[in-house]
C-alpha cells in the first residue's frame, strides 16, 4: 500500500541517485516511455547497476517494456525490487510477463491504458498475480481521441471503471499522474483522485510527491471523527447509533476503521495530547 508512486527515468543518473529522498512511498524506475529506443540498453544497465549498489529504502518497481520483456528481465535477475509495472496491460501481455517471472514472487501493477484493456479489466483485476491497477490516462486519452479537460470528464468513466474492478477484487487502485506543469491543475486533479476513492496516485515530478502524500493521508479532523465512532462502538458494542446528530451504521463504522488503519500506516495518528495542541 502506498500513497505516491514516483516515476524515475531510468536513463538519468541524477534522478536515480536522488529518487530516494523525495519521500514517495514507492518508486517506479522507468525503462519504458521515459527512455528513447536507442537509450534502452544503457538505461537497463544503469538501473541494474544503481539498484545493486543503492537499493532505495522504499519499495522499488521497474516499468518494463511490454514488447521487450525478455530483454528487460535479463537485467532484473537478483535485484532488490518489490515488483514490476506492466504497461499496455492485457491478458496476453500478462501471460507473457508470467513466463518471464518464472516463479519470482514480485508484485505486479498493471498499467491500464488501452480501450481493449477495459474490456478485459475484470480478468486482469482477478488475476492472483496482479496487486494493483494503474490508470494510464495519457495513452488512454489519446486512444479514445479525447482531450484533457479541467473537469476531467474525459477520464471519469475510466477512473470509475478501474476503481470498481480494483475494489471488487481487493487490489490497489492507483490514479494516473498529472502530466501538466501547472500547480492549480495538479491540485484539482489530486482532489478528484481522492474524492473518487483512489488509494494512491502516480507522480512524474518529485515536487508532486509532498502534496500527493498529504492528500492521501486522512486529515486530523477525519481521524478525530473516526476515533469517536470506533470508540463509541467499542464501549457500547452498538453498530447503529447517533453521534452528534449523524446516523452511524455498519458501513460508516467500517469506513471509520479503515480510515484509522490508513492513518496508522502513514503515521498520522497522534496522541490525544498532541491533538489538543
Amino acid at each position, binding site marked *: 500500500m502506498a500513497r505516491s508512486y514516483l516515476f524515475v527515468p531510468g536513463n538519468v543518473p541524477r534522478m536515480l541517485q536522488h529518487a530516494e*529522498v523525495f519521500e514517495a512511498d514507492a518508486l517506479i524506475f522507468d525503462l519504458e516511455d521515459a527512455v528513447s529506443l536507442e537509450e534502452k540498453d544503457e538505461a537497463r544497465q544503469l538501473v541494474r547497476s544503481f539498484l545493486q549498489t543503492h537499493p532505495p529504502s522504499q519499495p522499488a518497481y521497474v516499468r518494463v517494456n511490454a514488447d521487450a520483456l525478455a530483454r528487460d528481465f535479463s537485467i532484473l535477475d537478483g535485484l532488490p525490487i518489490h515488483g514490476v509495472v506492466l504497461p499496455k496491460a492485457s491478458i496476453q501481455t500478462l501471460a507473457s510477463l508470467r513466463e518471464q517471472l518464472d516463479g519470482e514472487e514480485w508484485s505486479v501493477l498493471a498499467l491500464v491504458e488501452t480501450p481493449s484493456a477495459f474490456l478485459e479489466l475484470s480478468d486482469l483485476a482477478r488475476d492472483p498475480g496482479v496487486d494493483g491497477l494503474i490508470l494510464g490516462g495519457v495513452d488512454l486519452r489519446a486512444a479514445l481521441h479525447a482531450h484533457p479537460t479541467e473537469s476531467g470528464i474525459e477520464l471519469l468513466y475510466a477512473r470509475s471503471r478501474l476503481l470498481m474492478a480494483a475494489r471488487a477484487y481487493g487490489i490497489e487502485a492507483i490514479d494516473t499522474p498529472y502530466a501538466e506543469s501547472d500547480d492549480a491543475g495538479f491540485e484539482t486533479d489530486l482532489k478528484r483522485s481522492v474524492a473518487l476513492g483512489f488509494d494512491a496516485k502516480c507522480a512524474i515530478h518529485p*515536487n508532486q510527491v509532498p502534496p500527493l502524500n498529504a492528500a492521501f493521508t486522512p486529515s486530523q479532523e477525519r481521524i478525530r471523527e473516526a476515533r469517536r465512532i470506533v470508540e463509541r462502538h467499542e464501549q457500547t458494542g452498538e453498530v447503529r447509533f447517533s453521534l452528534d446528530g449523524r446516523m452511524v451504521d455498519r458501513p460508516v463504522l467500517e469506513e471509520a476503521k479503515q480510515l484509522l488503519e490508513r492513518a496508522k500506516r502513514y503515521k498520522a495518528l497522534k496522541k490525544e495530547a498532541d491533538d489538543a495542541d
Partner: protein
Amino acid sequence: MRTDDLEALLDVLELRDGMRVSFHHHLRNGDAVMNEVLAALRRRGLKDLHLYASALFPVHTEAAACIEEGTIRHVTTNYVNGPVAEAIARGKLRGEFTMQTHGGRARAVLQGENAIDVAFLATPAVDAEGNGSGIYGAAACGSLGYAVEDHACAKRSVLITDSLEDFPVPGQLSASHTDHVLRLPSIGDPGGIVSGTLEVTRDPLGLKIARMATEVIRHSGLLRNGVSFQSGAGGISLAITEQFNDMLAATGTQASFFSGGIAAPHVKALERNLVEKLYDVQCFDEEAIGSLQRNTGHIPISAGDYADPTNASRVIKDLDIVILGASEVDTGFNVNVTTDSYGNLIGGSGGHSDTAEDSKLAIIVAPLFRGRTPLIQERLFTKTTSGEHIDCLVSERGIAVHPANDKLAGRLKAAGLPVVDIETLMQSAHAYTGRPKPITRGDAIGIVEGRRGDVQDTLYRKAG
C-alpha cells in the same frame, strides 16, 4: 567640490602611491564606478594602492587589470568572485589579500584599524548639499548600508552619482561627511544592480531542504511572538522565507524583525503584518527598493549597526534564527563559503560569520553533494565560519545537529525529524561520490579574518 570631471577631482584629491581607496558593492554586478575610477588611477601611474572594497564581482575587470599592473598591491574585501578572484588565485597580487566579514569591516573602519584615504562611493541620488541616498535615481539600489562607515570615517569621501537632485534627498549618507560630489553620465547598469524578481527555487532537492529547515524552525522552541529571522537571496533561502511567512500566518505569530539583505518575500511579510520591522543593510530586488520608499517599518541600516561586534546595539545581537549556505562543511561543523573544495575563490563570509555567532539558531542548508563533490569534508579547503557557532546542517538526507546543542537534537527527534550524526551524513554522500582524494594546496595567498580582526584561516592557492 562638486564637479562632472573625474580627472579634475583626482587632481584635488592628491592621491599618492600606497593609499587605501574604498568602494561599496551595492551596485553589485551593474557597478560602473569602480572600473571608471580605477582606470583613471591606473592611467595616472599610481602604484601599490590598497583596494578596500566591501565585495568584488565579475563586472570589476579593471580591478583585475590594476592588480596585474601593480596599481593595486593589496586587496581587502568581504566577498570576491570573477576576474579579481582569478588574478589573486594566479598569484598576481603582490601584497596582502584579506577576507573580512561585513561586521568585521565596519568595526575595522570605525576603530581606525583600516584607515581609508579616499572613499569613492557610488550614490544613486545626491542633493545640492551632498546628502546621498540609494532609494532614488536611475541606478537606485536601495539601502547603502555598506557605504555608511566608509563615508563617515574616510579622510575624504566622494559621492559619485548620475542623479544630482535639486530637492533635499533624505538618505543614509549625510552631507556632513561628504567632501566631494562627482557626477558621471552613468554610475551603473540597473539590470546588473538588482534583480527584477528573484526566483524561489523549484528544484525538488532545494525544496526538500527548505521544507526540512522550516520544520527545524517550527520545533526549535524559538517560534513565538517576537521571533527574529534572517535569510539570504538564494533560491533555497527564499523558499524557506516564504514557508516561514506561511508558518507565521498559520500559527498567528508576529515576528519582531527580519534583517540583512532584503527581497520580495521579506517585504511580503512586512506588508502582511507578519513582521514588525525590516532592518535592511542591502536590497536584493526592485520590490525591496520600492518598499523602502513606501513602508515606514522598512528601515535601512549601516553595516556597523547591522553586525559590528563591538557595537552593543547591533541588530543581529537579537537575532534568533539565521539561514546560511555552505560550499563545504567539516565534521566539526566548520563552514567554508569562501572557496570551493578545489580552492577556487567563489565568495566569502559577507555576514555569514557575524550572524552565525550572534544568532541563537544558525542553520546551514545545502545539498549533500553537487555533481561528484560531497559537501561534508574531513578537512576544509578554507574555514570561513567556526563550527562552534553553527547549530545544525539541513541536507536532503537528514539533519545533523552540533553536539553542543543536544537540546535542539532532542526537540527535533521528538518531532520525528530525521536527525543523524554528521559522520553518517558524510558517509551517505560518499556512497554516491566516493571518498574524495585529499586536495593538495598551493602557496598561501591571503588570510580569512574573523570579525574581531583575528586570523580565522589562511587562504591557499589551488595546487598545480
